[in-house]
């Protein structure tokens, strides 16, 4: 079997509630798969099963032998009395100093190394966590809501960064997102789920799928409006961006 990760007919029940019902999913090298769905849809549970942190009630989860997984949790909050700098945090993975500094450069966090973890902004935190995941030389990156607490421009940048990294390292990506439109360009396959798989496929086909529209129909416009708004105060020379997005909105 050549899949990096293969989840077959996963069921998961917790305290009598069915959280996942017959969910199947496979991931190959270099492939970017995004899970979307409303909160409570079981996205995080599925990710935890894929990571081996949870055992499914039934179904099988197989990972390629010795698969190196880089995991990016939603955030890391340490006690105020734990003096933890970004550098010490990254050093919890055993790796060479040179590699650590190279990776920090890739995700542009060199200037943060002496900062306390608790003083990071949302976007800085996500980059640090991404660097941490890259330290294990991952074949598979798993990201749980990688853009939480990040402003909209930052979100687009982060998705771009994730896509670049995936291409460069030829690693597969499994991520959870709440917004299809932001990840559209950065993903190969979207799995839309609500305790079961509602629909899946290429992002454009999913965005037109009735099951998707039923789940997300009303959310589409506000997020795009926000996106446009954010680009309104871009300086001269980038005006074409604003124009393009406005056109997309009208379409």
């Amino acid at each position, binding site marked *: 079997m050549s899949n990096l990760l293969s989840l077959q007919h996963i069921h998961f029940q917790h305290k009598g509630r069915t959280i996942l019902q017959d969910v199947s999913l496979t991931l190959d090298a270099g492939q970017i798969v995004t899970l979307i769905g409303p909160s409570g849809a079981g996205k995080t549970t599925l990710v*935890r099963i894929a*990571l*081996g*942190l949870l055992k499914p009630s039934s179904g099988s989860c197989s990972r390629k032998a010795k698969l190196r*997984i880089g*995991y990016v*949790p939603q955030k*890391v909050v*340490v*006690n*105020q*009395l*734990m*003096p*933890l*700098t970004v550098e*010490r*945090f990254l050093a*919890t*993975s055993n790796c060479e100093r040179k590699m650590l500094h190279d990776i920090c450069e890739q995700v542009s966090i060199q200037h943060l190394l002496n900062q306390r973890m608790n003083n990071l902004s949302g976007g800085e935190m996500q980059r640090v966590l991404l660097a*941490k995941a890259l330290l*294990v030389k991952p074949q598979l990156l*798993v990201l749980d809501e990688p853009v939480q607490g990040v402003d909209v421009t930052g979100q687009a940048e982060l998705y771009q960064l994730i896509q670049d990294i995936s291409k460069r390292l030829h690693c597969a990506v499994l991520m959870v997102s709440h917004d299809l439109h932001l990840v559209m360009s950065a993903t190969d396959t979207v799995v839309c789920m609500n305790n079961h798989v509602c629909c899946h496929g290429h992002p454009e086909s999913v965005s037109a799928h009735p099951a998707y529209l039923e789940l997300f129909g009303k959310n589409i416009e506000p997020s795009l409006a926000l996106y446009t708004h954010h680009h309104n105060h871009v300086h001269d020379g980038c005006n074409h961006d604003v124009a393009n997005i406005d056109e997309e909105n009208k379409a």
Partner: protein
Amino acid sequence: MSFIALAAAAGLAIALVAGPVGCFVVWRRMAYFGDSLAHAALLGVGVGLMLDLNLSLTILAVCLLSVPLILLLTNSQHVADDTALGILSHASLAIGITSVSLAAGGTLDLSSFLFGDILALSEADVATVIAMCITVGVVLAKFWRQLVYVTIHFELASVEGVPSRRLEVMLMLLIAVLVAVGMQVVGALLIGSLLIVPAAAAGLLAGNPERMAWISAMFASAAIMGGLAMSWFIDTPAGPSAVVVATGIFAFAKLLSLRS
């Protein structure tokens, strides 16, 4: 050996281990867990007296057995279910005191268990204390980095192959051993503060987790020595005096951290 040298040896052994262990108690918000264990130790005294068993061993056994009980009651991997711990903690305190007075028929002075009796330790007691502290210290040092990692983020450590859950339980058992030993030296009511106060003071000043552990060990030692000195020169009880000194150190550290 003079009683004061014995007291200093036992006190320092406990302080040097309680400092670093206390860092985890502070980081993981396990203060209540430490108190519950200390109260369970008192229950151990009661059981030991009633059944006429070796007191140190009974205290150790009861402390170790309370760990699975606490895990069962709090039913979470990250502890700190404060209501459940509160019930357990005060129930064992009450049952402990009741059973001690039942067993000893009111002739026994409870205060040596509540506040410790560091000046009455025998050479054999001190040897046991030191051996236990070395054991806890060695295990802690061996798993230090992994324990710090689990404390930073449980799942992140797990995904990287760290046996997070097992390490958490191991940490609880280490704390149980330290509390069982320390309780006989600084008392059930004060061992918790020896875990928390020096570590909290160190946390205000240190730049990384490892340095915090060392500073915490130094602060805890200074507190014990200060307590003994107070006891020697102005005749105050040693255990509470040590906590008074520790609190002074914390206040000083707080002032320092505010200045910088």
